[in-house]
């Protein structure tokens, strides 16, 4: 419900009531209409669709006397996420300046309400920005929601937890994630972050039958609250240093004048990085992720590992790489340290685990390290590598956790390595699918993982940090060892023993339709992108973010109008301005 508060939030500095201390009545006459910023509802459509979709889901479920028909909630969630993606397509066309994609001609739609010229644009008084990055992220988060809801369809039935709650929470956290992706204002970013994480805290604690789930939820909540307080304190510092919380205005302020003592600025950077590092589980703020991933119900873990991390990185890229590009020299060392730590600790600790879910949690920490080396490059190629890695990583992770959901069987508790022993013999198809995902995460060629790691290494080497690339590759090799252990457990352990004995009924795991569909989707994309990385490379190339001013408005409006339309950066163009 607080997500809607965001949409309504007037951009702070356009309200003219300045209650300057001591001034009795406001300067302007009392009943003059307050100028409100123009709202491009078309730009807000993706957010609205997800938010209202979640609300309507709750209403329907509360009005239905007896339970909903089987699979209705999943279908509904997939439809809402699909609709949100469809709403994002015209924005994508607008940002890239096309007027029609394939058969869909946008001119007749609500097109005229969008600003005339092509290129990224912002609305709600520069609070929400629509550019390549935000639309790419909308698509990615919606895909994560679709895959997540498909996985949880049969899972909830199996665990006896039917009900709309999980799906509503998925939609609300996606809405929060999308707000974060589109946020050009630090406060809107914070609200998106909070909407996302509060929904995910409850999602983590939603398995009522398992004590670990509640405990995971509480741990995630306490540490999440702790880190969002740091994040907010960082925003306060930046507000103190630059006098505004809007990233566009902040960038102008910093380019115009160098603040005398940028102590506030540096503290702000550090604190913001703490908040972001916690959200994406980079070391040393990763302590929560193995416990929470182990405790929380597996389908919601799939969403947490993909959607939440994508939104976290979107915020990180937009704030640091774009808004504070000039000050890259200040924050790059911190990101460098985070990357190295995440890579090394992520892969080393993963080896000592014997619980598969916990191993995957640590391996996702080492993936975060890889994405951080692309962020550390702070170049357009770096951003493209981040987006490519996030996209391919989402499918790999959701797929792997999909298989873990199935192997977890009733009670979602059987995740130790010997539950996977001989899986190659008892469930050959499931084992083959899991091997594809594991090899993809290890970065074996002809899988999306390899190409993603390749682009990340290129971005790092291009930006001159070759040492980082070498460390990354070595930790990828160490991480490969842990994926091998799982493959060994599945295929090679008892193959000589009772290989001939027929597989008993209990061992064979039935792959339900919805989970099968999402696994199929993930496998096809992982191998497809591995073979033909072209299309996804184009998409991520177009996903370069750029901070952009409010489009020009007639002189009559009061408030902070900005003269020319400062659409600074055509997509993919030089990063400095963008």
């Amino acid at each position, binding site marked *: 419900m607080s997500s809607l508060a965001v949409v309504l939030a007037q951009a702070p500095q356009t309200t003219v009531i300045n209650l300057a201390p001591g001034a009795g009545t406001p300067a302007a006459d009392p009943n003059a209409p307050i100028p409100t910023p123009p709202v491009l509802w078309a730009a807000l459509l993706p957010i609205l669709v997800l938010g209202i979709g979640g609300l309507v889901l709750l209403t329907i479920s509360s009005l239905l006397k007896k339970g909903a028909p089987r699979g209705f909630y999943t279908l509904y969630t997939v439809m809402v996420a699909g609709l949100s993606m469809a709403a994002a397509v015209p924005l994508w066309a607008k940002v890239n300046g096309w007027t029609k994609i394939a058969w869909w001609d946008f001119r007749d739609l609500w097109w005229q309400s969008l600003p005339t010229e092509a290129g990224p644009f912002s609305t709600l008084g520069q609070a929400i920005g629509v550019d390549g990055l935000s639309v790419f992220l909308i698509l990615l988060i919606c895909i994560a929601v679709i895959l997540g809801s498909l996985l949880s369809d049969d899972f909830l039935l199996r665990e006896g937890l039917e009900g709309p709650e999980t799906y509503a929470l998925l939609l609300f956290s996606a809405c929060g994630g999308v707000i974060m992706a589109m946020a050009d204002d630090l406060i809107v970013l914070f609200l998106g972050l909070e909407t996302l994480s509060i929904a995910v805290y409850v999602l983590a604690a939603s398995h009522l039958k398992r004590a670990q789930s509640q405990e995971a939820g509480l741990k995630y909540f306490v540490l999440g609250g702790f880190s969002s307080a740091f994040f907010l304190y960082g925003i306060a510092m930046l507000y103190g240093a630059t006098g505004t919380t809007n990233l566009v205005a902040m960038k102008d302020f910093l380019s115009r004048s160098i603040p005398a003592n940028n102590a506030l600025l540096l503290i702000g950077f550090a604190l913001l990085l703490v908040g972001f590092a916690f959200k994406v589980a980079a070391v040393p703020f990763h302590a929560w992720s193995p416990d929470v991933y182990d405790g929380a119900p597996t389908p919601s873990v799939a969403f947490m590992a993909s959607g939440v991390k994508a939104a976290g990185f979107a915020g990180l890229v937009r704030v640091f790489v774009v808004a504070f590009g000039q000050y890259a020299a200040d924050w790059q060392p911190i990101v460098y340290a985070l990357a190295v730590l995440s890579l090394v600790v992520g892969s080393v600790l993963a080896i000592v685990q014997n619980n598969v879910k916990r191993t995957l949690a640590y391996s996702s920490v080492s993936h975060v390290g890889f994405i951080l080396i692309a962020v550390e490059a702070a170049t357009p190629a770096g951003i493209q590598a981040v987006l490519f890695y996030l996209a391919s990583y989402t499918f790999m992770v959701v797929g792997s956790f999909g298989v873990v959901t199935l192997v977890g069987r009733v009670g979602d508790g059987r995740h130790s390595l010997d539950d996977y022993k001989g899986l190659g013999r008892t469930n050959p198809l499931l084992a083959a699918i899991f091997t594809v995902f594991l090899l993809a995460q290890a970065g074996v*060629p002809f899988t999306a993982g390899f190409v993603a790691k390749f682009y990340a290494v*290129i971005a790092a*080497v291009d930006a001159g940090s*070759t040492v980082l690339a070498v460390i990354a590759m070595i930790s990828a*090799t160490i991480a490969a*060892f842990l994926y*091998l252990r799982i493959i060994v457990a599945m*295929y090679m*352990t008892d193959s000589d023993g009772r290989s001939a004995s027929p597989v008993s009924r209990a061992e064979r795991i039935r792959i339900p339709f919805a989970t099968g569909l999402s696994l199929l989707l993930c496998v096809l994309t992982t191998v497809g992108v591995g073979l033909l990385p072209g299309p996804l490379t184009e998409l991520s190339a177009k996903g370069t973010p750029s901070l952009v001013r409010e489009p020009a408005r007639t002189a009559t409006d009061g408030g902070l109008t900005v003269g020319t339309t400062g659409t600074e950066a055509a997509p993919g163009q030089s990063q400095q301005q963008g």
Partner: protein
Amino acid sequence: MSTLVPAFAAVFEQTSEHTGEVTGLGFPLLPVMVLCPLLGAIVIALLPKERVDVIRLVAVLSSVAAGALGIVALAQFEPGAPGFQFVSSATWIESLDIKFILGIDGISLFLVVLTGILFPISLLASKPEHDPKGYYAWLTLLEVGCLGVFCALDLFVFFLFFEITLVPLYMLIGKWGHGRRVYAATKFFVFTMLGSAFMLVAIVSLAILAKAGDGGTISFDLQKVIASQANLGTVTSRLIFVGMAVAFMVKTPVFPFHTWLPDAHTEAPTAGSVNLAGILLKLGTYGFLRYGLQLFPEASLYFAPTMITLGAIGIIYGGIVAAMQQNLKRLVAYSSVAHMGFCVMGLFALTIEGVEGSVLQMINHGITTGALFILLGFLYRRRHTYELAELRGIQKVAPVFAGVFTVVMLASIGVPGLNGFVGEFLVLAGTFIAHRWWAVVAAIGVIIAALYLLWAYQRAFHGEPDEANRTVPDLDWGEKLVIAPLVALIVFLGVYPKPVLDRIEPAVRRVLEHVEVSTGRELPSSRKGADLAPLVGDGHGASHPPATGLDPGAEAEHAEADR
């Protein structure tokens, strides 16, 4: 198939600007050859698990087809033509100028043919105990990797195929090996993966720093990178060379990185170890030649002494440790370390004879060690052991088997008249010109090789067969059929290596001239080599004019005239 080929050809348009004149015969030879086993692997994956005979048939057919295409390439090959032949390329990722280019020249031609021959023979030579479907699928996929590596002309595609060979072999050793197979497989995987991790960073930094593409963009095309690697600083090019060298040193087990080889060999199934020894070890030495010498002439010149010493150590160390082995397969594995030591030494002698000998040694070693492992496979099928202690007096019981084993073993020792000798002699001659004392050390290595192989033969084959060995049946006709082509090749190459040398020599000369041109320093052999030539009297007509300022064109007609 007929409709498929033109469509396929359209994808791989025949770029002839590499070769200048000779283009492929309008039919994308190399892509079909590389992807033919892939087709086989896919078909096998789709076949039901029970139809073992059909699966085996599809596997053998697809690798024989690839071998046949290799022979066609051998026949069509223009010996003297500069540059690469049968080049076909399809763009893959435009933004990074990554193209799927395949092409071969004198050096990679015979390695491709060797792969084409060895794979079908290894498939026929042995049968897996359990789960044949996975076994044949992984083997055909391994062939795709091997063929691809030797034909790739794009750094990214080379790295891709280099990594592709990793997973199938890991599965083969891990699932169908014996003894401590999981340990050996994991050790093999991690060693190679670590090496290739360094190589990836090296390739990426090479592509970016060399700014090879037209207009200084990133380019992964081998030709462009070779042309523009000059604008790399000496230190960076040396660093990148080290990065690449680590991967290749792990792959050809050069001394410090060889520990994975004995385990991988002894635990691998027969077909696995035949291909591992026959082809996969050549990836490293081929890599050194194509991506070491050609790409970083100055750096390879700088590191030549160190590499030669490592090669020499490898020869001596391999020989001594092999002599002490009780397990026959481990003995052959260490002998491979020694033979590959020869190749490395020949390569970094940087003389025409040295490099030529090293390429020939790669081919000969592939044939002889492949044959040795097949024979050991037959032995294992009969006695289910490799331990020398348990084998005695097989000569009396299986004379034909012993006879064939003797021929192959003598070839491996390097007895004149068989193929081992030609390669090793050229390597020794080349090294003698450049680094006199290393050649002496290497010669000692040859003697040690003779020592441990003959001793092993004597222990296993001579003497009275006790009751266990008495029942060893002789080779049946199937096995004879399998081993016959290899023995024929061993004898043929030993007696008349001229056709092979004719095709290797121009390519090697071009590489060395490229090294001379870019480093600007006279390579030791080019002058003194000429006067040694009459002594050697090797087949391909030594009466060249002294090799000062030779232009390739003249050399080409000369070779033409000779034949």
